[in-house]
């Protein structure tokens, strides 16, 4: 693969600082995402998946959360070094996000149409950003960034058609042009009756429907990177399957890079090309899904896979991982997993766990594991 990665997370550590101390929500997380691939992140509740999803586009609330070290390089720009007011220029058209809780992620005060149309307008204004920068910003300047920094690397790479030549503003919200695009966006997520739906308020829709609209709204900005933070966990099982099917179809259609976060191994196996396994704020194993799930090279991944119910062996006993997930406030010394690890050696508790190391030295960007004894795992 010769393409430059869309996103490189390099040694990212995030602390939550509260009244009497701090705890490490993310420790030295490193991985990269290649364009057009779906990267899954899997782990148990409280392992830092959601913190990671929020840290990438700079969504973490700053008083409790603090980025201790590391970089988030998105299309060549380090987002952690970006001033706060420039972050909006990356969001939306650069990085889009679908949240876990569809009941909360749409504004209850606006109709579906207004919310989707707003996203479309943001994209259209960005597409004209370079032109506007020369001729002065319009009254609806959604993004202060491109207007003031026309030569910035941000805002450029994800303009699909390149700068538009004539000076023009985005059409008004009520224009038929925007309306057509809203309908298009809703049809993309398989909403059968978009004309009716776009007149409704979020509270008049079911959870699954709201999540579809959330997806439609996010995709309407044509982001280069889509973060899906447990997009189906809050839904009923049948709706979950529908939304997953939809997302799988969309992945094939839009061919954008997706960071798919889930606690469900089956979902990840189904959706993702690459997978990172998280434990206690670290990515402890990373690599192509097939390789990681067939030949796990970290004891935690192995245990996690064995604990997952297997429908083909309905009557077999389920294995569980001994012990419980450590609180981030009370991480054990050494490798965080060693108290629960069946392969632990005495020095596992002394040396901090290694950073990700390639399983096969010949393929440094392939399957990687953060276990000292990765090679010895059966």
């Amino acid at each position, binding site marked *: 693969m010769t393409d430059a990665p869309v996103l490189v997370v390099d040694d990212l550590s995030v602390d939550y600082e509260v009244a009497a*101390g701090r705890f490490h929500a993310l420790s030295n997380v490193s991985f990269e995402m290649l364009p057009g691939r779906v990267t899954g992140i899997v782990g148990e509740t409280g392992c830092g998946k959601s913190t990671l999803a929020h840290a990438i586009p700079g969504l973490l609330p700053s008083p409790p959360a603090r980025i201790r070290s590391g970089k988030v390089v998105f299309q060549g720009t380090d987002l952690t070094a970006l001033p706060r007011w420039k972050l909006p220029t990356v969001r939306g058209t650069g990085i889009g996000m679908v949240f876990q809780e569809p009941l909360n992620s749409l504004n209850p005060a606006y109709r579906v149409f207004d919310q989707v149309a707003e996203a479309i307008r943001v994209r259209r204004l960005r597409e004209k950003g370079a032109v506007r920068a020369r001729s002065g910003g319009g009254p609806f300047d959604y993004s202060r960034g491109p207007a003031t920094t026309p030569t910035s690397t941000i805002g450029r790479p994800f303009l699909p058609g390149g700068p538009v030549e004539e000076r023009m503003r985005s059409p008004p919200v009520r224009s038929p042009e925007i309306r057509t695009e809203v309908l298009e966006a809703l049809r993309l997520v398989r909403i059968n009756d978009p004309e009716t739906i776009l007149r409704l308020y979020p509270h008049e829709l079911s959870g699954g429907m709201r999540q579809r609209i959330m997806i439609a709204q996010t995709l309407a900005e044509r982001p280069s990177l889509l973060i899906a933070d447990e997009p189906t966990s809050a839904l009923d099982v049948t709706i979950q399957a529908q939304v997953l099917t939809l997302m799988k179809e969309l992945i094939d259609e839009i061919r954008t890079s997706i960071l798919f976060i889930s606690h469900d191994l089956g979902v990840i196996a189904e959706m993702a090309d690459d997978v990172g396994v998280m434990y206690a704020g670290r990515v402890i194993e990373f690599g192509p899904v097939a390789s990681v799930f067939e030949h796990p090279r970290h004891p935690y991944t192995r245990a996690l896979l064995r604990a997952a119910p297997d429908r083909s062996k309905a009557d077999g006993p389920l294995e569980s991982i001994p012990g419980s997930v450590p609180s981030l406030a009370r991480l054990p010394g050494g490798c965080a997993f060693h108290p629960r690890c069946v392969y632990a050696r005495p020095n596992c508790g002394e040396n901090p766990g290694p950073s990700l190391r390639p399983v096969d030295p010949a393929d440094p960007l392939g399957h990687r594991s953060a276990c000292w004894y990765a090679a010895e795992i059966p």
Partner: protein
Amino acid sequence: MTVPPAAPASSPPSAGRAPLSVGRARRVGRGLRLLYRTLRINPLSFAGFVLVVLLGATGLVVWLVPSVLPYPALSINLNATNLAPSWAHPFGTDELGRDLLSNVLAGLPVDLAIGFTIAGGSLLFGGALGVVAGYYNRPRSLGAVASMVILRVTDLFLAFPALILALAFTIALGRGLYPIVLAVFLTWWPFYVRLARGEVLVVKNQPYIAAARAAGVSEGRIVLRHVLRNILEPLMVYFTLDVGTVIVTFSTVAFVTHGIQYPVTPPVEWGAMVAYYEDYVTYLPWTVLFPGIAIFVTVLAFSLLGDGLRDVLDPRTRQSMIQVGSAAREGRVAGAFVAGSDEEPPGPPGPEASS
């Protein structure tokens, strides 16, 4: 805080919003915890709390030992008229040589007593009606009729702007301090009907009430022991800061009606004092400023305290408060661990790991 003996076995299972507390000590303990949490989170509320305590103590001392005042209240001294603030008269004197500091201090217990009396009377009267209106509303019962009457009358009173109604009552009731107290009380109780009713409607539908009923506890006992106890906390918090609001309203009524109430001497009540001295404001400004500042400080103290308490009780901000609280607790644990982790030898793998 001392933990009282465990609840008797007969108490119904606690659930929902507030754990059903049994025993005075625990109730007091809960109130103190609420106070402590508020004060710790919120420096402004802490300042308010300190001020309230100081004012209360001063008021008590002045009331019990009037001789602590530098001069007897309202005593005329024609050799010291119209004096600007100085060491001898920190708040200055008025046109008849009355010492303003003494007058203002003498007004402190009066205004506090007025605030507590009116707010307390409203709490008892309005609260009781609110409990009735909230609890006894089964359709087509006598209680429902009574509830409806109570609520309609309450609505009617609440339709008036509070100050306007209090003024109208004052005019109708006649002269003196007590008609104003009565007038403000008559205006005030409906707030508590609404508040208590809202609380009762929430508590009433909690599972532990159904459990008590299922266990054969009589209705009267349910109201007294279970409903009343669980609405007490918000009512008391509201009462605490309401004292300040009552003082402002009372003093405004006293100010406006001053002309027909006390034509000759300034009374030892701050609002009337300001009204009395208003004519002198241009050349004896301190005579107006100091009683006014006294009201301001007193009411601000209660408001600062209450504002913080309210945040802790507000269901919408409570959630984030609790999160902050528990995060702080976890953080303390984390901090302790981080501090000690350097020396701490990594323990051997737990016994369960070796299986």
